[in-house]
């Protein structure tokens, strides 16, 4: 479904990602692990079209989407919830979701009520400005905005960053529900616990290279993660 082979990303002379491979089908969940600066964010942003790729191929739904603009990729059903959320501070919650649902696309959008069902708090705040929401609510809105585009696969970049433990727990539950509903989840995380709760498989990155790929509960993976984090 989503097949990535030999993905490379560079910033000018600096190569951030040195060729990683992974596959992901709808309903599946995969965690991309690694310490800061390992190239996780660069990888997902390149997949979603926000960063240019320096090599490799991204095939989605049978079509080569390497180097296509982000807007094109979203329309095909591959949505990214970016690390910094990238919301529109002066938009209300409802406007934000409308902006995503009324953008031109090939697939019908999900009704906004879907999002409000999943995140009742957003329903209550629908006329509040996105900039005035709490961090957790902003994260929910970012997920909601991606969800409205009716994705087949959703990329989540560190959804837990800067959030309180309780909120992270409820987010994890919702991501699990989204996954069960048949959406493929690619989760970028530093926090191993969250990754374990969401994903069944994982890819461990270290300085831009995949150093281990396998099941989340594999002990060998643990060692690789330790190594990747603390050197």
């Amino acid at each position, binding site marked *: 479904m989503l097949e990535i082979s030999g993905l490379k990303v560079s910033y000018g002379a600096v190569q951030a990602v040195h060729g990683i491979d992974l596959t992901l089908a709808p309903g599946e969940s995969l965690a991309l692990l690694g310490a800061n600066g390992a190239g996780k964010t660069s990888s997902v942003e390149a997949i979603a079209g926000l960063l240019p790729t320096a090599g490799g191929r991204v095939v989605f739904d049978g079509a080569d989407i390497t180097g296509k*603009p982000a807007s094109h990729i*979203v329309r095909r059903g591959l949505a990214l919830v970016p690390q910094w959320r990238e919301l*529109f*501070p*002066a*938009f209300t919650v409802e406007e934000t979701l409308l*902006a995503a649902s009324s953008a031109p696309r090939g697939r019908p959008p999900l009704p906004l009520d879907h999002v409000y069902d999943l995140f009742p708090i957003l329903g209550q705040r629908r006329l509040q400005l996105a*900039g005035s929401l709490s961090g957790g609510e902003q994260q929910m809105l970012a997920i909601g905005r991606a969800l409205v*585009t009716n994705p087949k696969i959703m990329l989540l970049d560190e959804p837990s960053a800067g959030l309180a433990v309780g909120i992270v727990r409820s987010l994890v539950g919702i991501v699990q529900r989204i996954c069960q509903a048949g959406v493929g989840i690619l989760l970028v995380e530093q926090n191993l616990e969250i990754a374990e709760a969401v994903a069944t498989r994982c890819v461990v990155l270290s300085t831009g290279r995949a150093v281990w790929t396998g099941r989340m509960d594999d002990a060998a993976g643990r060692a690789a993660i330790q190594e990747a984090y603390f050197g």
Partner: protein
Amino acid sequence: MAEFVMVILGGLKFGAVYALAAIGIVVIHKATRTVNFAHGGLVMLGAFATYVLVVDWKWPYWTAYLVVPLLIGALAAGLELSILRPLRRADLFTVVLGTIFLGTALSEAFRLAYNTELLAVPAAISGAPIFIDIGEDAAIVTLEQIWVTGGALAVGLAGLFLFRYSTLGRSMRAMASNIRGAQLCGYSVERVYATAWFTGGALAGLAGVFAAPSRGVSPELAVSIIASAFVAAVIGGFDSLAGALIGGLLLGVVETLSAAYVSSAAKSAISFVLLFLVLLWRPEGLFPEAKRRHV
């Protein structure tokens, strides 16, 4: 008193045209982060197109309100595509230089096409002026004055409304607010930028249609409109459409008031004094947008 009312109404008529041009500048700046110093050239070409339609081809005046905005909008989108797109990766400074000279080029191209001092365009609407009794005196209002003031304001308000509530407006606002976020919603940068330039150009074209009878068509129109429209936009905070609208009206009224009650020489200075004071007192303009830009 009647005299005062007439001064205010006269100022509003010019102010409404400034406002329309200023809104175009703001739309383009908001959505694409480009400061368009060539906007005056677009307004002038709008007035010129009106001349060609109404005088040369003898089409009825109302057709200009339909055709000219489309034409100038398309031209603006074309300029974005051909000249500004390659400049997108350059810094703001380079883009400002580019648009300054683009404006000069537009004026000069027109001058080469039509080397006369001024092309006159008949009024869109004529008829006996209306007398409104105020105290002992009567204020005199012409239909044209009402039409231009009302029409330009209506278009400006419609622009405001569209930008605020339509899908198209939402896409531009989203792009203005967070370019990555907007892309992740599915909005293409290329398309939204072209749309913004088209919209800004269309507003400039309409400003030209409204301005043509009362100002005539000459390259000087480009310079005087760009100065006034910029002042209006800066007064309004440069990123607020409503601010630009109010800024335009304010400028028009202040200009005529100062000319009427201070000195006619003060007129051209007053807009600059106003601009200067606003910049010093509130650099973010009188009506700053609530914004937190993603960097």
